[in-house]
C-alpha cells in the first residue's frame, strides 16, 4: 500500500499513491536497442593485455586510487574470448603486429578498441624501423587517447567516451 502524501516525512516530496515503492510490478518503456546498449556500455570488460609504459598506467587505473570499477570496466579478462575491449597500451612493433591482429580477431563481437597513448595512436616518439606507426594500421580503433603515457584520468575519460559511443550504436547486425 502506498504512503499517503500527507504522512510523508518530507512534505515537499510527492510520493505516488501507488506503484514504485510498494513492491508491485511497475514498468518502464524503452526500445530494445537502448536497453541492450545500456547493459553493454556499463559492463565493458577489457582484455588483460599490456604492451609498454602505458600498461603500467592501465594497471594503475584498475587499482585503488583510480578504481575503474566505478565505470563497470574493472573485470580484466585474460582470454580474448571473454573480453569486449582491447586497450592497446603501448608501442606496437613489427614483430608484435600479427599477434595483436590475431588477438583482436579472437575477440567475439561486439568489440571495441582504445589506442592508449601516442605510440598506439601514431607511433609517438618512435618513428623508426621497428615500430608500426599507429595501431590503426592493423585494427580499427574507436577512441584515441593522447599522452605519453596518458594519465589514468585520461584513460577513464576515454572509457566514458566509449560508453557514449556504445549507447548510440545499433545492436542488430555486426559491425564491419
Amino acid at each position, binding site marked *: 500500500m502506498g504512503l499517503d502524501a500527507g504522512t510523508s516525512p518530507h512534505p515537499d516530496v510527492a510520493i505516488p499513491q501507488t506503484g514504485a515503492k510498494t513492491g508491485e510490478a511497475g514498468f518502464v518503456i524503452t526500445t530494445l536497442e537502448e536497453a541492450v546498449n545500456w547493459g553493454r556500455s556499463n559492463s565493458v570488460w577489457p582484455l*588483460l*593485455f*599490456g*604492451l*609498454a*609504459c602505458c*600498461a*603500467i*598506467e592501465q*594497471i*594503475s587505473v584498475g*587499482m*585503488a*586510487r583510480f578504481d575503474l570499477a566505478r565505470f563497470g570496466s574493472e573485470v580484466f579478462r*585474460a582470454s*580474448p574470448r571473454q573480453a569486449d575491449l582491447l586497450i592497446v597500451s*603501448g*608501442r606496437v*612493433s*613489427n*614483430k*608484435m*603486429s*600479427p*599477434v595483436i*591482429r*590475431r*588477438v583482436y580477431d579472437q575477440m567475439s563481437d561486439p568489440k571495441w578498441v582504445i589506442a592508449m597513448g601516442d605510440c598506439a595512436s*601514431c*607511433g609517438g*616518439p*618512435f*618513428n*623508426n*624501423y*621497428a*615500430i*608500426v*606507426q599507429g595501431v*590503426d*594500421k*592493423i*585494427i*580499427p*580503433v574507436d577512441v584515441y587517447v593522447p599522452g*605519453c*603515457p596518458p*594519465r589514468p584520468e585520461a584513460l577513464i575519460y576515454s572509457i566514458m567516451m566509449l560508453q557514449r559511443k556504445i549507447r548510440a550504436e545499433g545492436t542488430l547486425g555486426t559491425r564491419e
Partner: protein
Amino acid sequence: MTNVIEKIQAKYPSVIKEHIEFRDETSITVSADEFHDLASFLRDDETLRYDLLVDVFGTDRLKLGHESRLAANYELYSVPHNRFLRVIVEANDPEINSSSNGMQSTEKSALPSIPSVTDIWSTADWLERETYDLMGINFVGHKNMRRIMMPDNWVGHPLRKDYPLGGEPVYFNHDRENPRFAHLGKPLIVGPSYETELPEEMDTEGNMVVNLGPHHPATHGVLRIALELDGEKIVRAMPEMGYLHSGFEKTGENKRYEKFIPYCDRMDYASPMCNNLAYVMAVEKMLEVEIPEHVQYVRVILSELQRISSHMIWLGTHSMDVSGTTHALPMYCFQQRELVLDIFEMICGARMTTSYFSVGGLRWPLPGAFIDAVTSFLDVFSGELKDFEDMLTKHPIWIRRLKGIGLLPAEVAIDFGITGPMLRAAGVPLDLRKVRPYSSYDQFDFDVPTATEADCYARYLVRLEELRQSMRIIEQGIEKIKTVPGPHRTADRKVSLPPRAEISTSMEALIHHFKLVTEGYRPPQGQVYFANENPKGWLGFGLISDGTAVPHRLRVRGPSFVNLQATDYMAKGGFISDLITIIGSVDIVLGEVDR
C-alpha cells in the same frame, strides 16, 4: 691498469694491437683470430679473473677510419678485483668494408665473423645473438645463431650505419577523406601470422611444446616462452623476445646527446629516474663535468624513491602471479607507488616519464614542499612495509610457492652475468653503489642485503631489505640537502643553459645559450661505458663519440635482458606454476628486455 696490460703482454706478447686509456677506462683492441684464447686467459688467470661478462655489442665504424669496419666490444668485469676492462675485437671481414650494404640479406657465412665465447661466459649467448641480429656479425661456434629482436623474415641489420632509421613522414592533419589515410583500419599484414622457428634441440615429437605468451597475463608484458613439457614438468624453457623492440639504440644514434634523455624513461618504465641517472652520468663522464653536491644528493634521493616504487610494482605483480587472482596486495603496493608518483609529479609534472635529470644537473630546482612530502611519505611507508612483511613473510602458501624454487647458485649466476638483487640473493654482495660509488653514494651509510639460499624466497627477502635500506638513504639525503640547498646545476656554461636573468645582461651567456640550443655539446672522440645499480640490476650505457653532437654509437645494456637468460636454468625440471614464480622473481620489464 698497467699491471693488467703487462700481464696480458707477458702471456701473449703481440696480441694487443692498440691500448687506450680514456676517462679511467682501459680498452684494448685485438684481432678476431686471437680473441678466444685471450678470453679464456682473462677469465681463468687468478690475478685477472674477469669472471663477469657485462656486455657485448657491435660497432659499425664506417667512416671512422679503421681498417676493419665492424667490431664487437666486450665489457668485462672482475668481481674479486673490482676492475673493468674493454676488449674491442675487430671482426674478420674480407669483403665488407665499403661495398657491402646493411640492408641486404646476406648469408651468415658471408658476414664478418668473430669466434663465439659462449663456452667461456654463458652471458654471451643472447648478447652475441643480439649483435648478430642488429649489427650483422657472425659468431662462429655459437650453437643457436638466430635473430633475437627482429622477426625471422627480416632483411638486413638495422644498427649498421648504412641502414636508414626508417619511419614515416609525419602529417599534421588527419582528414578521413584524404586518400593517404585509406589504409586505416585495414590489416597491414595479410595472411597467416608467421611462425617463429624453435631451437633445433627442442624435441617437438616426443614432448609437448606449449607457447607461454606473447600475450599472457603472467609474463609481465609481451614475452613469449616456448616450453617443452614432459607431462607438467618443464624440459626446456626458451624465452623469445623482441615483441617490443623499439629501436632505442638506433634512435639515440640519430639524436643529439641531451635529446635521448626522454627515451630513457620509456625503457625500464618502472624506474625512469634511475635510467635517467645512468644516462646523464654516462654523458657527464664523457664530458668530464663537475656536478654540484646538491645535485648529487637529490639524484640519490630520487633514485632511491624510484627503487621503492619499482619494488612496489614487483611485489604487487609477483604476489598476484603467485596467489592467483588475489587483488588485495597489488592494491596496497600500487597505493604506495602512487604516493611516490605524487612526489615526482610535484617536482616535474609527470607521473612516470619524468626526464628530470639533465646533463649537468637537474632540469628545475626542487619545489619548497619537497622535503616535507618525502618525510611524510617515509612515515607512511615504514608502517606499510611492515604490513607487507606481516602478510607475506610467514604466510604458508607464499613460502611453499617460493622456497626452493628457481635455484641459481652464485657461480652460475656470475657465469650468466646476473646482477642486482638476484645475484645478492645468491650471496654475492655486489652492489655498484658500494663497490664503485657514483653520485656521492660513498657519503651514505647503508648495508647491502644478501642471502645465501639463492631461491625465489631469498630474492623476496633481499628486495624487502633493500626497501628498508633505501629509506635509510633517503633520510640521510634529506638531512644533506637541508645543509646544501643548491645550486641545481653546474656552472659550466658549455653544458648547462645559463639562467634567464643572465641572458639579458651578458653577451657571453647569450652566445652559450644559442650554441647549446642550436648545436648541443660536442664531446671529444672516445668511448665510455657507465653502469649504475638499477632496481633490477646493472643498467649500462655505452657511448662512442666521433666528436660531433650526435653519438656515433649508443648502447644500452638492460639488466632485465641479461637476467632473463637464466630462465631456462632455473625453470628446468620444475612445474609451469613454478615458472610463473620465477618470472616474477626475476622482475623483468619488457621495455628494457627488448629496447
